[in-house]
């Protein structure tokens, strides 16, 4: 079974803090993704990566950055957290040729971040 593990289930951070959300997958997937999930808005893609040290902006990259130093790990960084970044963050991974919606595209269980 592919596992996508997000290191924290719940996080509470203060405004202005630098926040790291970590995601690790154990199936040697090339692609990794960060989404944000908000009530009434569905999921929105923040950033994705097709390979180590590669990154691409998604639909809502403002206020975020990412790091992919190792194939299995994809970090989402909030340089200076703000209250409007309070949300559920979902990580996903897939093999290089597995587009969204394929059965090999796997989501983690999410990190609920609250910025106070």
């Amino acid at each position: 079974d592919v596992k996508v593990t997000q290191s924290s289930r719940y996080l509470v951070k203060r405004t202005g803090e630098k926040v790291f959300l970590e995601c690790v997958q154990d199936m040697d997937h090339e692609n990794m993704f960060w989404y944000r999930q908000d009530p009434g808005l569905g999921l929105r893609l923040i950033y994705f990566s097709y390979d180590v040290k590669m990154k691409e902006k998604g639909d809502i990259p403002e206020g975020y950055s990412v790091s992919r130093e190792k194939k299995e790990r994809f970090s989402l960084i909030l340089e200076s957290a703000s209250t409007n970044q309070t949300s559920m963050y979902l990580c996903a991974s897939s093999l290089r040729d597995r587009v969204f919606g394929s059965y090999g595209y796997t989501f983690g269980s999410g990190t609920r971040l609250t910025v106070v």
Partner: protein
Amino acid sequence: AQSVTQLDSHVSVSEGTPVLLRCNYSSSYSPSLFWYVQHPNKGLQLLLKYTSAATLVKGINGFEAEFKKSETSFHLTKPSAHMSDAAEYFCVVRRLSGGYQKVTFGTGTKLQVIP
């Protein structure tokens, strides 16, 4: 441009009765459509997908959906609800063009199953 509209934010059914979760889409191209389910504290799981083959698509756990181009709909149904079906469901549209893909999520429908 593409969009997807889930017509109900909450649906409540009694256990053993049919489930209908409605989804309408808009796409300038032939879309692929998906239904995902999210149980509390779990990741998103693919229920079923339509990718231009058969218009009636069967998925896991007894769910199915029918692609109706004339109505631009992709409603999710199940003949008999089970307590374990209580979750949030997302309709998703995807467009592929060469190496580019555009994915748009619906806003979700929370299904409540009453014993």
